């Protein structure tokens, strides 16, 4: 296939395959330049100078030997630098020396092989002719014929009853697969209903996350912030799932800094407010509290909520304020929830109604 690269088969660039194919809006000037053909081949220094040739050969073989040395070094490193328990530094050294010796072994092979290819292997350009991608007319005609013959022999077109019933069967056959996927999640649950409720209910104490120790109202000093979970959550069968909904941030502001809307007057306790920690955008924990401005920031997509305005969104992609957890204090001075949230927490979902009592 490959000829000697003399360029004797040169055709103009534009006169491409399928001269009968439409060139569309392409313009081909009548007196466009002719392809001058391959430029004369240039000899490399290794072609001209036998000394250089031998030198490059030595370099390449040296690289291959070097690779062997590196591979042996890698095995040596594996044993010589073991991982010692409770010593992260040994992990680092193990990774470093194993990595560098293996890399050295591989790179030496790579550099050597490529250099061999570039400097020592015959570098005369070869020319191979292309063929049109479409089959020849005979081939195409024969394929059409084959289909026609097969159609005749099978009666696929003629026996339309057979054909249509088969198509029907093939359409119906994959349908059971759709149902088989139903048990990916437990039965008898409505996900939308589950999203609407959390582990908070009347009288549940607010506890520190993750220790689970309840919080006294007196512990919450002005300007402080607590990461909160419902007390007793660790006993829950679905700890992470419940926590993903029930996580709360507790902050204390000066009572006069809070702009309480009607109906929520009793939801805070002496300036202590509790808001869902789950962002109303896509559900990241809104974990960053800016003490001076009383802004909460979601580190994932930078939604900002203003605690002074009942966690209203002041920047970022979120739309809804963080839901507020109504709190009060029990007889022992611990903070407790008055009820569950009055609306679903976390990201929006299709079935989430817009008429929650908040």
């Amino acid at each position, binding site marked *: 296939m490959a000829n000697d690269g003399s360029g004797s088969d*040169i055709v103009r*660039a*534009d*006169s*491409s*395959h*399928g001269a009968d194919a*439409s060139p569309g*809006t392409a313009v*081909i000037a009548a007196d*466009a*330049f002719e392809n*001058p*053909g*391959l*430029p004369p081949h*240039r000899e490399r220094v290794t072609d001209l100078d036998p000394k250089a040739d031998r030198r490059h050969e030595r370099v390449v073989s040296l690289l291959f030997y070097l690779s062997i040395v590196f591979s042996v070094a890698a095995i040596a490193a594996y044993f010589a630098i073991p*991982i010692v328990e409770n*010593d992260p530094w040994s992990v680092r050294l*193990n*990774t470093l020396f*194993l*990595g*560098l010796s293996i*890399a050295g*072994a*591989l790179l030496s*092979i790579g*550099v050597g092989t*490529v250099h*061999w290819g*570039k400097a020592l*292997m015959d570098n005369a350009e070869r*020319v191979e*002719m*292309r063929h049109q*991608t479409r089959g020849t007319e005979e081939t195409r005609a024969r394929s059409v014929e084959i289909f026609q013959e097969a159609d005749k022999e099978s009666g696929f077109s003629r026996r339309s009853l057979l054909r249509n019933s088969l198509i029907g069967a093939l359409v119906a056959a994959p349908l059971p697969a759709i149902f088989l996927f139903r048990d*990916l999640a437990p039965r008898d*649950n409505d*996900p939308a209903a589950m999203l609407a409720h959390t582990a908070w209910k009347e009288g549940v104490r607010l506890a520190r996350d993750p220790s689970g120790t309840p919080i006294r109202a007196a512990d919450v000093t002005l300007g402080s912030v607590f990461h909160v979970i419902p007390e007793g959550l660790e006993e829950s069968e679905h700890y*992470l799932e419940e*926590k993903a909904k029930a996580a709360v941030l507790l902050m204390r502001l000066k009572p006069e800094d809070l702009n309480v809307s009607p109906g929520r007057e009793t939801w805070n306790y002496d300036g202590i407010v509790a808001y869902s*920690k789950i962002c109303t955008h*896509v*559900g990241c*924990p809104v974990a960053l509290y800016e003490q001076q401005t009383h802004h909460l920031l979601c580190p*994932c*997509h*930078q939604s900002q909520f203003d605690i002074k305005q009942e966690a209203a969104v002041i*920047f*970022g992609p*979120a*739309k809804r304020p963080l839901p507020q957890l109504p709190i009060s204090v029990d007889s022992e001075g611990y903070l407790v929830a008055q009820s569950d949230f009055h609306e679903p927490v976390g*990201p*929006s*979902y*299709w*079935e989430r109604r*817009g*008429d929650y009592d908040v």
Partner: protein
Amino acid sequence: MTTTSDTRNDLRTPPRTQQRGVVGAVSNYVDERTSISGFIKLMARKVFPDHWSFMLGEVALWCFVIILLSGTFLTFFFQASMAEVEYDGSYVPLKGLEMSAAMASTLDISFDVRGGLLMRQIHHWAALLFIATIMLHMARVFFTGAFRKPRELNWVIGFLLWILAMGEGFTGYSLPDDLLSGNGLRIIDGLIKGIPVVGTWTSYLLFGGEFPGTQIIGRLYTLHILLLPAVIVALIGLHMVFLIVHKHTQFAGPGKTNDNVVGYPILPVYGAKMAGTFFLVFGVIVAIAGLFTINPIWNYGPYDPSPVSAGTQPDWYIGFADGALRLVPPGWEFVLFDTYTVSMNILAPIIAITLWIVAVMFYPFIEGWITGDKREHHLADRPRNVPTRTALGAAGIVYYGAMFVAASSDLIATHFQMSMENVIWALQFVFIVGPFIAYFITKRICIALQKKDREMALHGYESGRIVRLPGGEFVEVHQPLDEYERWRLVSFNDYKPLMIRPNARGQISPFERVRAVLSRWFFEDRIAPVTRGELEASHGAHGHREGANEPDLHQSELATAGQGVGAPPHTKP
């Protein structure tokens, strides 16, 4: 090779070619059972053109091989289970902590398996590089027009590979079940829940109950090591088959035509370079993995829905999706009929990304429709010679880039002491206006470069030699290009805007009208390649002036032009 004998019952041994020795015996054994000699004859001397940019796809391929090798090692130690275990490995700060078996086994790979951390980091770095080289490869194919007929379908296959590679990346990223990847899954959960009608149930089924559940790691693991790799391997195979069928594109150049391939045969030169490239890529990745930490899950800890660290970043290739979520202005969510919540703050980014991705996938068909060119194209365009396409590509990169950069909006704000709001507003501006600016600037640059090429082809290049003529006039001697160098500048496809004409029934279809508008937009600003007539005309003008004043000078310049003294180097010496 054997030849068939004339008569069926003739049992005489036909004449054979067979090499002696062990190699000959083994080759003979294999060939007599596989016909492999035919395959060798077909493939082994196939010619591949040489250009550095053709290596990008190859690097992607080798990255994938490295991912398979390192990933297999990891599967021997990794446990894709969300069962709660108490960590009891070597990493003291996490000792005694409750975590999933997935997280614990990933920590064991990192701290208790010799070379395990290296393998994890090889796997992760190779994955990052895999997607990067895929995208660079796509950019190369796009900007050189290598997606044109007959390669449109191979573009689509490559496009699918890119999407699948991102899927592989995301599923793999989530497997350790650490805090950072868990938050990534949380975002995916939120995204899915935002899809109208089916979102809530899709999330419920995917996670096997409420988020995070105890199923997702095992499910992602099956996707990550079974389904997605199988599809990727199959599509890479198909990608390669089409590469063989079409043969590789090459840049226009002397001796290179639309009907040939000029380069080096697979055996030995190209094979050596390819094999060498594998070892180079592998070596570089191992070196990076040995030197630089990636995804230090021990710093993040096990997943817990409550904590999160500031400055969280996804892996780079997911950045554009994360950034798109950040660019949404506040308040893009509404309630339908007081019952259904429509989260445009989730849907808008999904739509913005989908539009871009769909445009990438269908671009070859759109351009093919506009030009109406049904010929096969095997010569790669220089990007400047198709200004509108190149400008569109630049616009697409800016569009993607704005989303990508937005994923780091918080880090940009903290590193450069700017307000987070200003960074987002600036990026929103870049996202919307940037593509237009990039389009305009790129197009002008392309046309300017084309003009420069034209100038060079017609009048030669500036030699830097100032000559004083007898009349006292100073001129700079322009050295004419040799024919090889000139060919590089004048051999490109040229299109003119479509002129709509009524069809047989005297009508112009609205389809054709749209096509005409697009065609005008595409090819209105066009610089045609220099023709022989134009060159002669320009030489005539020169001859009149220079020839009259300095005949010897002109002659000598012409004589030395082809010999390479001070001439620009050929692309292919």
